[in-house]
């Protein structure tokens, strides 16, 4: 890449979604390509998590941006284009969601690939793979509304306000769905004591301060 082209690419990357949408509306294909490269991986992960089919997830990426291109004239992103794109991707994912049992889960394969990259004992790797399989199976038992919230938050890293934009409902509904999803997952995972869950019946433990180390390790300190 020449210096001039690199400078042009850096300029395009620095522009906001709104500027890129307006430029793409004026038939600036580089601007549209910049939007594509900015969001294609996130949409791919979202489609992969819902459909579990990489080829279907690729088609979802293509179809999402094809729809975005057709809708350029009426797109008015206030900040980020991500909620609009993710909403289209979620709809496309559930429209082409295959029947249960017909699709091989590549998510587990990807999990195992990553696990194998770390230096751990084989028994530990097997244990981790099994735990992940259990958790992913528990996620599959959720309904579409609750699963989308879980995927968007834990996989795509969207906050609750962004999720509310994607699923087009109030933020209170998103909080409620997330709580319901966690409660359902907790009930499913309680059958696996190796995950550290207590059986739901034995919930009369001694009250006390809950260490937040796990939360802080995952999310960081709240302040």
């Amino acid at each position, binding site marked *: 890449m020449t210096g001039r082209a690199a400078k042009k690419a850096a300029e395009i990357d620095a522009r906001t979604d709104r500027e890129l949408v307006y430029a793409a509306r004026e038939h600036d*294909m580089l601007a*549209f390509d910049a939007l*594509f*490269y900015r969001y*294609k*991986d996130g949409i*791919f992960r979202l489609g*992969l*998590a819902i459909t579990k089919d990489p080829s279907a*997830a*690729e088609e979802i*990426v*293509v179809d999402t*941006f*094809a729809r975005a291109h*057709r809708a350029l004239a009426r797109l008015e992103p206030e900040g980020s284009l991500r909620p609009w794109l993710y909403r289209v991707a979620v709809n496309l994912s559930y429209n082409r969601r295959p029947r249960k049992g017909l699709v091989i889960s590549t998510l587990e394969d*990807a*999990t195992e*690939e*990553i696990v194998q990259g770390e230096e751990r004992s084989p028994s530990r790797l097997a244990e981790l793979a099994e*735990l*992940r399989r259990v*958790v*992913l199976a528990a*996620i599959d038992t959720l309904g579409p509304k609750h699963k989308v919230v*879980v*995927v968007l*938050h*834990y*996989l795509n890293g969207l*906050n*609750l*306000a962004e999720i509310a934009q994607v699923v087009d409902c109030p933020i209170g509904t998103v*909080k*409620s769905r*997330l*709580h319901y999803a*966690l*409660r359902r*997952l*907790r009930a499913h*995972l*309680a059958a696996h004591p190796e*995950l*550290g*869950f*207590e059986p739901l019946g034995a*919930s*009369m433990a001694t*009250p*006390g*301060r*809950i260490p*937040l180390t*796990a*939360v802080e390790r*995952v*999310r960081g300190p*709240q*302040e």
Partner: protein
Amino acid sequence: MTDHMACRQTQERIAVLLAGAADRRERLEIESHTSACARCATAYRDYIATSVALDRAYAPLRHATVALSPARVRLAMRVPEPVPAPVRFSRVVARVNEFALAAAVTAFAFVGAGSVAPKPAITDEAVPTDVLTPNMHVGTMGDDQSFIRWFRIGRYATPSDLLDPAVSPRSLADETPPATPERAGLLR
């Protein structure tokens, strides 16, 4: 507010806290409640474990990327839009016409083939035997042997043998006039 409602509200707040959307005041309220309520304390601990498990389960997928080019999008946009219903109907009609024409041609071919099919061969019953017998030579395996025999005789035998109808082949006998006994006697 009853204890049950407080617990339910607290557990919903726990989910919000784990999503990173709770402020400091809410966090303190949750902690004060869970320090006094065993059920919510257990729920808090389990929600944390669930959240960590979810986070770990999706961790590998967060690194997934796709090697796609924007050219695929442009290619997809060139795919023609679905045709409207009237056009679809006319295409169906055209398709039916094609099938009807193909069926008609096939039927005509079969019927035509039947009309020009070879007639059954003339059998012995169809033609009087008295006409067939002197004029028709029905080939059998024996004829070849007769011809060989005749050929051998014609080459090595005397000419008188050739005129013997009992020796010469039947076809030759047909072409030659029947030898009268007188003439046969003269030749001998």
